[in-house]
């Protein structure tokens, strides 16, 4: 087959995006565990991973610019390169939001104001969406991507339910405002992570079918 080096570069790009995806999953998972258990050590370890993600994302960008400038990809190759650029940006935002989550344990002293049951449910669904959006990217499976994105509605519902609950709690007891505000930030970050998963799913549908759709 001609253009061996080019195809190797495309394969490498895909692998790099999946590596970034795995790191995003790990950082999101550990930051949630740290915030639920208020585990400051785990939070600090998680924060230390951000620079590795930056390096990986930078390498992905460079390889995309090289592919565009030097190889002029066409058709499904072009869709892969464009999707990889968009997906890596979404993954970087997911990491950014997870890092924000990992900063919360350090701010909360003496335990949470309530058990984080619905918040955990939200993060489990968001983690499911992230895992399946990446699987869909790997296999170019538009059906799986659409199914993963469809779960965003559950995240949104839980977000509003917890939001209302926290506002009501703060109205009743102003001494918890500081801690409750961090929880409001937390659910907002998770809700945004789920939105970025939807964006990834949109990119996968585009990659697989050349169709531009909105799943958010």
């Amino acid at each position, binding site marked *: 087959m001609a253009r061996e080096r080019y195809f190797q570069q495309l394969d490498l790009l895909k692998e790099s995006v999946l590596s970034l995806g795995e790191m995003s999953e790990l950082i999101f998972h550990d930051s949630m565990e740290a915030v639920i258990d208020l585990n400051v050590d785990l939070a600090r370890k998680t924060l230390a991973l951000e620079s590795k993600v930056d390096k990986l994302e930078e390498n992905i960008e460079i390889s995309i610019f090289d592919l565009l400038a030097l190889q002029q990809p066409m058709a499904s190759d072009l869709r892969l390169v464009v999707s990889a650029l968009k997906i890596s940006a979404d993954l970087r935002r997911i990491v950014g939001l997870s890092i924000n989550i990992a900063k919360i344990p350090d701010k909360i002293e003496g335990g949470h104001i309530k058990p984080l049951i619905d918040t955990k449910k939200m993060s489990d669904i968001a983690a499911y969406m992230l895992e399946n959006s990446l699987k869909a990217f790997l296999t170019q499976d538009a059906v799986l991507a659409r199914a993963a994105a469809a779960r965003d509605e559950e995240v949104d519902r839980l977000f509003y339910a917890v939001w209302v609950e926290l506002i009501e709690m703060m109205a009743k007891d102003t001494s918890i405002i500081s801690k409750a505000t961090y929880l409001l930030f937390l659910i907002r970050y998770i809700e945004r992570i789920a939105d970025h998963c939807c964006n990834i799913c949109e990119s996968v549908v585009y990659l697989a*079918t050349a169709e531009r759709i909105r799943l958010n």
Partner: protein
Amino acid sequence: MIEVVKKVAQPHIIVENLNLWYGEKQALKNISLQIPRNSVTALIGPSGCGKSTFIRCLNRMNDLVKNCRIEGKVLIENEDIYGADVDVVELRKKVGMVFQKPNPFPMSIYDNVAYGPRIHGVNKKDIDGVVESALRSAALFEETSDRLKSPALSLSGGQQQRLCIARTLAVKPEIILFDEPTSALDPISTARIEDLIMNLKKDYTIVIVTHNMQQAARISDYTGYFLMGELIEFGHTRQIFHSPKEKSTEDYITGRFG
């Protein structure tokens, strides 16, 4: 989704079930397509796929090839150009052609352009105007206006190719066929010819054969992909290079074979 082209709104050329044999070897197999008016249609495909043979059918250049047999129809303005009463000289006036290698006549720049109008009986007093107009349309007048009597062969390769385009334009064709017009040119000359082709489509219908996929993507409105004498896929250039329907097209334009 981008629609696949089946019929075009204003076809200038309609090809129906075109088959061509060189002796025993079939070079074109049942080609049917419609080429839209005032547009650039690019034909791509690996060497020997039949794309040059195909455009040579559009002005009956294959008539000159020994043992060449053609079946099917090529309609231009709804007239079958293979009809018994067709004047081939008139046809080639209507359907001009520019070749891979610039091939100016060994005469002056002026005479190269004037040659066609003269043999088609244009009045002597009108020739200057025709030459100037053709050179302007081919974006060559500014560079040559002070040396029109110089030998055409003193021009650079890119200028010679634009001269050949001017020579084609001088006989006022409706359709211009380009057979790999920039494959012998440097990138700057190539860019000038590409700009020229895009400007010319206002007044002409253009069909271009090219091996340069980026060129087809840059300048054409429609693209046809040929393989082993068959037209595999024809559609809007955007669709062909973005999401081709046929795997074979995809494999070719992404370099997976060919």
